[in-house]
């Protein structure tokens, strides 16, 4: 089970927070960690027993997943990669600004990948497909909407 997903920048500003279990907010100073060390942290003290945290650092952003023993550590690292790849495809060279301004898009993408704490999709192509169908629906809906008006 994935317990939480967070994206924050290097100044500790949250850019996206999503908790699959209701948890108090926390802020771990990830920035104090050196660049070439492992990406896992034990998070029991913050998230309760059996919690692990994995983060990945991209430019000015930290992507943080919190999960428990039902997930594989390396797979979670891959999943962050999938998430970021998808964002990259979606925004063409994603940067912090894209993430700042596309709040709900981000949630939609994340919902395709992680559903109620479970990994449902691991291919960024599939996520893009889902996004496109959503867009199409929205366009068609709006067209019909205007026609009805």
């Amino acid at each position, binding site marked *: 089970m994935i317990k939480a997903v967070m994206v924050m920048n290097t100044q500790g500003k949250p850019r996206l927070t999503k908790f699959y279990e209701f948890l108090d907010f926390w802020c771990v100073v990830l920035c104090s960690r050196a660049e070439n060390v492992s990406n896992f942290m034990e998070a029991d003290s913050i998230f309760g027993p059996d919690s692990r945290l994995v983060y990945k650092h991209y430019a000015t952003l930290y992507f943080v997943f919190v999960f428990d023993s039902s997930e*594989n550590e*390396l797979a979670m690292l891959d999943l962050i990669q999938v998430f970021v790849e998808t964002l990259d495809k979606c925004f063409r060279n994603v940067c912090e600004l894209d993430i700042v301004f596309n709040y709900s898009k981000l949630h939609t993408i994340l919902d395709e990948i992680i559903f109620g704490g479970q990994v449902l999709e691991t291919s960024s192509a599939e996520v893009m497909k889902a996004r496109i*169908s959503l867009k199409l629906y929205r366009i068609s809906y709006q067209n019909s909407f205007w026609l009805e008006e």
Partner: protein
Amino acid sequence: MDSLFQRSLDDIIKGLRHQQAGESAFVSKVLEEVRREIKSTDSHTKSTALQKLTYLHSICFVDMSWAAFHAIECISYPNFTHKKVGYLAISQSFQESTPVILLISNQLRKDLKSNVEVEVSLALECLSRIGNLDLCRDLTPEVFTLMASSRIPVRKKAIGVVLRLFGKYPDAVRVCFKRLVESLESSDSPPIVSAVIGVFCELASKDPKAYLPLAPEFYKILVDSRNNWVLIKVLKIFTKLAPLEPRLAKKIVEPICELMSKTGAKSLMFECIRTILTSLAEHESAVKLAAGRINELLIDEDPNLRYLGLHALAIVAPKHIWAVLENKEFVIKSLSDPDPNIKLESLRLVMEMVSESNVVEICRVLVNYATKSEPEFCNVILGSILSTCSNNVYEIIVDFDWYVSLLGEMSRIQHCQKGEEIENQLIDIGMRVQDVRPELVRVGRDLLMDPALLGNPFLHRILSAAAWLCGEYVEFIRNPVELMESLLQPRTSLLPPSVRAVYLESAFKALVFCLHSYLKSATSSDHSALGLSDPGVSSQSYDEFSGAHGENGEASGTTLIQENHITPDSVLHLLNLIDMAVGPLSGSYDVEIQERARNILGFTELIKPVLSDSLHPQDERHKQQVEASKMVRLLHDTFSDELGPVSMSAQGRVPVPDGLVLHENLADLEAVCGSSLPASSATISFEGSHNVEGATSIFISDQKEESEPSSESTSLLAEHRKRHGLYYLPSEKNTEHHEANNDYPPANELKSGVTVSNDAQDLAKLAEQSFLPKRKSKQVKARPVVVKLDEGDVLPISSKIPQAKDDSLSEAVRDVLLGNEADADTLTQKAAADSVIRKKGKEKLNAKEQEDDLDHMDSQSGTVQNPVKERSKRSSRKQNADEGDHGGDKGKQKRRHRHGKHRTREGVQNPPANVISQTPVPDLLL
């Protein structure tokens, strides 16, 4: 008009970015706007306001619970964009306790039934995030329908939401479980299998036993699947299942080993390793293979892999320590790795390697590392040394002298913050291990002597322990005068009052001891030194007195050479010292200090004239002098009575006297005491022993007021011991005492013969020791006796109370899998109908059936093509049959297993249930 001037989310984000300092002012301004706009009747204005609020909630953590109803309004809008905003707001902000949550039930149902895929997805996502008991109960039928949807993304999500349904509403199992199991076999669409396996992995992690009957299905996926995500999850499931069924373990070990050696994905390889090490540790060859793969991880450049490699070693360590020992050098080297994870993990491994024979060597290495590393890790190292060494009443420590001096050394490490733990261990060892007391006192004295240590607040607890030890076991001190000086040194004003009180009490004990040995040596050897006019009388009376209280005298045969240092001058010096150092404290604001200081001063007041008189002899005063000796003797006896460790469960053994009403609600007690109540964490709390001291010192003050020493002091203590012997540790000195008069049975009678024999050993040991010459700590010697309590040495481990929810869930699963349908009252009507039908078309699946399943698995793995054929046969049959024949599905599934069995042992058995299961039953659900 509203929407024309409304700020969009982008405007808010831009605005926030331009705020340098006054962000909160900006946020509250936006919130004000939002509060106004959200009341609008225009759907666009409302949803934009809600979107802004959700953003602020997620990024700035503002409260949005007040907008719950507006969010519900938004999801009912026909416009998809507005609906989406509403759903996002709900899933971000609703909790199970949100009062309006039930209002969304109808809208969710409507959206779940919608023809538009994205709307269904939204509703499912929302349900998976916020579903509570009521929502899950109401929407189970809709989710059940969606689980058979032809649209893969919808079906996938419906399966995902089942986990929430089961968790919140266990009866949903009776409705959905069958379809969930069926979905396991939809190998034509990998996303579905992935989703189902994810659900089963979560379910099995809570109660693996219930899912054992599904092992054949999981096995098939393990052998057939090529998707690493699915394989990882299946391995997770098998990790839970394998320990429950040895035959299963035997079955899966081979495919897992194959997977481990073939796969290129590190994540899958690591999962294989973990599965083998956790659940298949009995299979030596598999563990060997896994160890080989671990070695690959350890030499990898990626710190993540190195960390996980060490993590894997930590898993294997308890069962196969050889795997760790093989990598000993690497582990030790990793202690200085820049990566904190790797450091911690290797420290854990090092601690795993500790044994009786190498504990000295390893601790030496670790303490060296600790002195060199940064404060945080240094304390982690110290903490793990302390916990490992004290584990199971110092099981691995043979040479306690060494350990005690190690504790002393650790206290002096610059960053040491483990004061409390060291304090507890020092006192604990002092009470439990008689033989080590001289060394303890030496270490304690060294700590007390160093004025620099008083400045470090982390050490105060240790100093308190050192002071207590030196006071309690003062007979081992070479130079008590020197001890007194260090206990009363001016820098003790840096200590917190509680520790200072211990210092004073110890000083008191040391003083009594000095006077006692002074009087003793004076009376027994050279009386003229004291200038007594009638030495004979005094000496005689003193000896008499000793005789009377001989059995309570100082610890057997342990008095050392201390007498040499006590001269009349040093006594005078001591008394002056006390006047000077303790005098000012009699006005201290802290009651503990004040009381103890007054005790000491009162005592010296009483004793001083007598002593100084004794230096200038006068005939008529010698009687008074005898009194003084008596007094000193009395106090000395009081202090030299040994304190034993107290069992943690001692309190519980006190029978509640009749008529005593125990205050039921202690909440008001907490209000009175506040945070001043100490958190007792140690097995043996220092406070406990402290109280005993307190009791005696109070008594002493009483005695002073009477200003007439009597023999009551010892008799009262003895009385206490007699009354509450239950809570004292048995010690050889007082065993006769107990036997003589026992109102309460003494503690050792409650126990088995173990402690009794312990006592016997104790004595034998003691006798042996006295014959042996004293040896240096470095030499090999037998482990000293460590007093153990039968119970109460370890804090009772609170057994994990399983949640009722989980219980009912696994019960429901077991019911469905094993076919014992429970009463269907609680189910919705449809669900009830479903279960009734299934009852008809069902075979009993019992323990024997499980065996069959496992056998079946054998045959399946032997003939790989068969299951495929089977499935195609089955699906064609399914097509032929009525689409809604879900009631019979279970039967079919069972029959498939039967077929499998038939292939292997044809003609052995003819299952009669076969016929029943084939009866097609119309399903009312569809």
